[in-house]
């Protein structure tokens, strides 16, 4: 690991100011994605700006139709939060399936979202639920936020502060995990929302995406059988020794049906 300066701001304002000042720096949330990157020297920031002491990033708030989760809330906290379980149980379940127990104790919603790993679980929930990413300066719709492989709409010094999830009628997440890494080979989030059924897929492609054909079919009949005979094209899907693009495409269908069956 290359040497860096370590900062511990206590406000969002200070955190952002620090990164503005140290343009070669990076925000550090739970570090469960960033530290492995640093250890492999795939990134060599001059400064690390720890967000751990920024109190305003740690809240979970549920006000009727909206669930607001601070960027520094850990996966374990999301998994166990009574507010989350009540509002969007599928989100609590999803968080409980990220990585492993130790990773969930450190890893955060904001860190995961900003890292934008193509096989991360959260992006499926964010896009599936039509969430809004709140930053220090603006709000971005989830679908506009994830722009590519490890790419987001964030400016270099922009900080994710929270994610606002509209509460759906029902939702579910079905994940087929990579057997070694436990990341999603394919994860499908299905949500029944006032605006219609949304289906979002992570793990299969370079970034999370929706499946309009599935959404249309499920909009007519919200039952797993509505997906019978429907497939997604595997064009552009990830393909590796663990799973070919074709197999991933097949799994999208299977996981989508299972998510529909698990809607709660």
């Amino acid at each position: 690991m290359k040497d860096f300066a370590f900062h511990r701001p206590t406000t969002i304002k200070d955190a952002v100011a620090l990164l503005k000042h140290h343009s070669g720096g990076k925000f550090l949330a739970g570090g469960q994605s960033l530290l492995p990157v640093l250890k492999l020297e795939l990134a060599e920031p001059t400064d690390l700006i720890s967000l751990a002491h920024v109190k305003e990033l740690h809240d979970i708030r549920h006000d009727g139709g909206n669930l607001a989760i601070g960027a520094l809330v850990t996966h374990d906290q999301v998994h166990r939060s009574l507010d989350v379980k009540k509002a969007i149980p599928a989100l609590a379940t999803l968080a409980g399936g990220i990585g492993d127990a130790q990773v969930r104790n450190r890893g955060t919603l904001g860190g995961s979202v900003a890292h934008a790993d193509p096989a991360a679980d959260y992006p499926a929930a964010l896009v599936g639920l039509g969430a809004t990413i709140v930053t220090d300066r603006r709000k971005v719709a989830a679908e506009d936020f994830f722009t590519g492989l490890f790419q987001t709409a964030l400016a270099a010094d922009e900080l994710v502060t929270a994610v606002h999830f509209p509460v759906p009628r029902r939702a579910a997440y079905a994940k087929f995990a990579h057997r070694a890494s436990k990341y999603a080979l394919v994860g499908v989030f299905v949500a029944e929302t006032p605006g219609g059924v949304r289906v979002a897929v992570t793990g299969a492609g370079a970034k999370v995406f929706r499946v309009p054909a599935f959404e249309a079919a499920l909009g007519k009949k919200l039952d797993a059988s509505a997906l019978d005979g429907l497939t997604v094209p595997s064009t552009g899907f990830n393909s590796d020794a663990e799973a070919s693009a074709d197999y991933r495409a097949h799994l999208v269908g299977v996981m989508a049906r299972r998510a529909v069956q698990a809607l709660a």
Partner: protein
Amino acid sequence: MTTHQGIGAAVKRKEDRRFLLGKGQYVDDIVLPDQTYAVFVRSMYAHARIKGVDTAAAKAAPGVVGVFTGDDIAADGLGGLPCGWLIKSKDGSNMVEPAHPALAQGKVRHVGDPVAMVVATSKAAARAAAGLVDVDYDALPAVGLLADAFKPGAPVVHDEAKGNVCYDWHIGDPVATDAAFAKAAHVVELDLTNNRLAPNAIEPRAAIGDYNAANDHYTLYTTSQNPHVIRLLMGAFTLHVPEHKLRVVAPDVGGGFGSKIFHYAEELMVTWGSRKIGRPVKWTADRSEAFLSDAQGRDHISHARLALDGNGKILGLQVSTQANLGAYLSTFGSSVPTYLYATLLSGPYDMPAIYAEVKAAFTNTVPVDAYRGAGRPEAAYLLERLMDKAARQLGIDRIDLRRRNLIRPDQFPYQTAVALQYDIGNYQATLDLALQQIDYAGYDKRKAASAARGKLRGFGISTYIEACGIAPSAIAGALGARAGLYEAANVRVNPTGSVTIFTGTHSHGQGHETTFAQIVAEKLGVSIDNVDVVHGDTDRILFGMGTYGSRSAAVGGSALVKALDKVIDKGKKIAAHLLEASVGDIEFKDGNYRVIGTDKVKAFGEIAFTAYVPHNYPIETLEPGLEESAYYDPKNFTFPGGCHLVEVEIDPETGVAEVVEVAIADDVGTIINPMIVDGQAHGGLAQGIGQALYEEVRYDAEGQLTNGSFMDYCMPRAADLPNFKVGNHVTACTHNPIGVKGVGECGAIGVPPAVINAIIDALTPLGVTDMSMPATPEKIWRAIQAAKKQGA
């Protein structure tokens, strides 16, 4: 003793406390004064010519105290890493043994081949400086896959090994086997691969070299299963120092599974490097480095043919195997696909004729050597897949087919067609016990319950045998081994009657500190709390060949029994003197010497005390003290065996296969500690199921490793495995004093074919007839799709 602690008692382990408290001492936990840190610069090329190595920038980097290359070790006359087993080809010629320098000289031959060692005052400084070593490579075409190694025009790994052939060996009787096939009613043929595995002990390898200039003495702390073997090889072949000037210590070692048997470049380099720089040099592997430098296992491609008569009785077996040895010959690499594999091809079956050919290849991959089971899993997998295919082809129930062919108890000693003579066993009993353990009668019900949940259930069987307790030195020597394979033990009875024993075997999870103490308790009647077991230090232990091949109890335990018998005999002489009786009238039982038929008794402790305080002592005829040593050279291999049964559930939509039931019955001979024996079986089963479902080292055709981390090499986790039902049926080994056979490897040997047979069984109704390891979800899903297409 109030409770039985001897042979057969499930006593808790003596070594546990230090591990549970975090007080174990592994090599990386050791910090020596003034210690420096080594980092190896490794090739990123699978095959390349080294045009030059520029170390100037690294040498000038902060904290660097030394940078060494292949030229430096060549100039100093360091020897190449040797191979311990000479295999002769069919034509009588010796195997090709290319040089294996500790740092590459002229060429690199696999990704990870070490090119330079950078030593600095901190690991961070060494790592930073390693990045400054500028190696000028001229990339060469590489051969990354065994399947390509013998193809005409394939890149050549070593100029002296034409066509990449290390040896082309055979065993058995080709004429008798041809005759068997000529009269066969049925011939069953099968092509299969045995997937390449990474042993992945959770403790990465580590080594510290510490040269003391004052007395010209070296100490090496290393993660080894056999410190004496390392000392022998370093003394005689690589470092060229007399053995009394080299101490090798293997302290607590965090698992080995074979991978820590071998003499590795890094331990040689830190020892040598310590002399060059005059300070201790420490190296600890990262996991990603382990994937590039630890010897790996398996990697066979085989074609097999089985001849049977009209009743399903086996007449003969023909096997042709290609084995990958990697880029260089590792310490025992040559012996694994030959004498540890093909000699086991008779399995537990009465098989009149066998002929096996093994052609071993050099490839641009990490060396391949022994990994848990070493050759025997490959043999069991081949045979048991073949037996299931035969059962399907002949329309005979697979259990019945095995029963028709298992060696009967009255056939022992049984001479196989491939050199081994099995002393004893009862394969029918282990088969019956395993079937009972899994509740075979209830299988149909379980299958129906699975079906109701949309799952395909399959049942898989494997009846297997292995050869352990290596090895009779004379036989091994005649077959090409370049070392003896006996074991040594030293028993030191202390004046107050406590006992310290010194064994040449090494415990790295097997629990020898407990089981060896139990042997002492059994023989001397002392509590295991009064027995200390010392292992892993060439300065403290007289000699030893170490722990591998499930040999420790059978060979090391037998040496211990011999030494204990000498102690008891000497004690008898002392007791006879004290009790004023003749030695012939003294018996030793339950810790007491007694004049037979009288109440005249001396406790063992009193005899020990007398030996060290010889006031009233037969000093003219007997030396004081009570300490004895013994060497034991086994008379034969031991032959554990048994039956492994597996039930899988397959999700036909995703192709995921889950092992839901495992029931095994093994015959590992006399059981010293049932708790430990079961634990050994569990661990082997996990690795065996790992091979069948999860694990595979993947190289591409150009020799790049594509899954060199735990992010993509799938290690079995707790949630991937079921509970195991483990049973034992004991027939005691006939030729060692305890009757033990060995338990370290059985799980890894028996279970892989049972898993694959279960998967094929589950998929047979869909028309699937074959499956390879690891049976990944995608493979299973594809097999289902292909069968559907064919059926449509």
